[in-house]
C-alpha cells in the first residue's frame, strides 16, 4: 500500500468556508486562508479548495481568494469550482494551484479534460465525481450535487481516464455532510476499475469511517471537512489513529 494522503477539504462560498449536509443548508466555518494555514500546520498532506457556487451561479472564479489562501502554505494545493477553459486552469496555476478539480464543465464538455491533460499533464487534472445512488448503481451529479447528469458513474470513470484525468475526487451526494460514514461500496467499485488515484470524500464523522473507506474502499486518499471544521479532531490525530490501524501515512 502506498502512503495514504489525508486531505483537508475547504468548500468555499467566498469569503467563507462553508459546510452543509448533502451539499445543502450551508453554514459558515471560517475564512479559507485561516483554515488552510491551520490544517497545513496540523500536517495535511494536501489542501483542496472547492468554490461551491461558482458553477451554480455561473460566475467567474474569484482568483484573489485563491491566491490569498495559497500564500500561507508550502504544501500541495488543489483548486476547483467554476473552471470552464484551459485559460482558467492556467490562471489558477499562476495563483498557486498545483492541480485543478473539474466536474460540471467536464460533463458538459469532456474534451476539456483532454485539453488540460495535453497542456498541463494528467497529474494536474483531478476530475470530481459527485455520485448519487440510483437503482443498482450511481448517477453523476453536477453543480455541487444539485443537477443530475444522466451519466452512469462507472461509465464516466472509464471515459475520463481515457481522456487523461490524473485523479478522481469522488464525493457521495448521499453521505456528504452527514458524518455517518463514506459510501464504501461506491468507492470500492470505482477503485476496482480506476487506473488513477482515487480520493474519497463525503461522510467522515468518526475515525473508523476513515479506516473503513481506506481498507474496504481501497482508496488512495481521504478528504476530511466537517470533523476538522468543528474542531473535533486534528489531522495529526487522524494520522496517528491510521498508523495504529496499520495504515501507512506521513507524520
Amino acid at each position, binding site marked *: 500500500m502506498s*502512503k495514504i494522503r489525508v486531505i483537508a477539504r475547504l468548500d468555499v462560498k467566498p469569503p467563507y468556508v462553508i459546510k452543509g449536509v448533502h451539499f445543502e443548508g450551508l453554514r459558515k466555518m471560517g475564512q479559507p486562508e485561516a483554515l488552510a494555514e491551520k490544517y497545513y500546520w496540523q500536517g495535511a*498532506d494536501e489542501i483542496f479548495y472547492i468554490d461551491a457556487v461558482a458553477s451554480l451561479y455561473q460566475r467567474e472564479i474569484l482568483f484573489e481568494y485563491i491566491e490569498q489562501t495559497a500564500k500561507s502554505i508550502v504544501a500541495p494545493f488543489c483548486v476547483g469550482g467554476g473552471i470552464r477553459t484551459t485559460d482558467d486552469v492556467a490562471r489558477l496555476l499562476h495563483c498557486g494551484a*498545483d492541480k485543478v478539480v473539474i466536474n460540471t464543465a467536464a460533463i458538459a464538455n469532456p474534451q476539456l479534460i483532454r485539453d488540460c491533460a495535453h497542456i498541463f499533464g494528467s497529474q494536474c487534472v483531478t476530475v470530481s465525481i459527485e455520485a448519487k445512488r440510483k437503482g443498482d448503481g450511481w448517477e453523476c451529479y453536477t453543480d455541487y450535487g444539485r443537477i443530475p447528469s444522466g451519466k452512469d458513474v462507472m461509465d464516466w470513470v472509464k471515459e475520463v481516464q481515457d481522456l487523461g484525468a490524473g485523479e478522481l475526487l469522488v464525493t457521495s451526494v448521499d453521505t456528504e455532510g452527514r458524518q455517518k460514514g463514506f459510501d464504501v461500496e461506491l468507492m470500492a467499485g470505482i477503485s476496482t476499475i480506476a*487506473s*488513477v*488515484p482515487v480520493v474519497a470524500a463525503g461522510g467522515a464523522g468518526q475515525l473508523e469511517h476513515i479506516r473503513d473507506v481506506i481498507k474496504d474502499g481501497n482508496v488512495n486518499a481521504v478528504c476530511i471537512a466537517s470533523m476538522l471544521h468543528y474542531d473535533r479532531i486534528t489531522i495529526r490525530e487522524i494520522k496517528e489513529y491510521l498508523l495504529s490501524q496499520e495504515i501507512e501515512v506521513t507524520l
Partner: protein
Amino acid sequence: MSQVIGVIDYGQAGNIFNIRKVFELAKKEVKIVVVKSGQDLKSVDKIVIPGVGTYKGAMESIAPFYQELRDKILKVPTLGICLGMQILSEIGYEFGETPGLKYFEGAVRLMPVKHPVPHIGWANVEVIRPSKILKGVTAEDVFYFMHSYEFINYKDVAGLSNYIDHSFVSVVERDQVFGVQFHPEKSRTHGLKIIDNFLSI
C-alpha cells in the same frame, strides 16, 4: 549578495507563482526573473526549470531559446523540478517522442507499475552518494511527488525513491546541475532544505 534566479516560463503551464513564493520564503535577497527569451537569460545567476506541464509542451515553449538555455546551463547552477528535471534528459515519450535539453543521459518514460498512475503523494529519498543538493536530507524526510513519467538514468543518480515496490530515480546531479522529481516548493520544511542548498551553491 542578491542572487538573480531565472525561472523558465512555459506560457500556460508551469508554476512560477509557487517557485517565487518558496524562494521568497527561503531567502529575502533573491530576485526572480521570468525567462521567456535568450535575452532574459543574460542577467541570471542561477536557473530554475519548473514543473507542471508536459515534456512536449515544455520543449515547444523553450524552442525559441533552446541553444541559449543549453549554453547557460553549462555555466550556472541549475535546478530542474519534476518536469523541469525530466527535460534535462535526452528524450521524452509523453505525447510522442520529443528531444530534451540533453544535459543528462537517458530517457523519460511512463512509470512501469501496476499501481495507480500518476504517482501522487509523499515519499522518502534515499541519498545514494555525496550530493550538494541533498545536503542535510535524512531518511525520515518526505517529499511531494506528482508524476506519471520517470527519468531512466544510471550515471548521475544522487537519490532514489519508491512508489510502493517500484524504485525510481528521484534526484540527479552532475557538477552544478540538479534535477529533482519531487516538488521542493510543496514539500514543507524538507523542501525548503533543497531550496536553501540550491541558494548556497
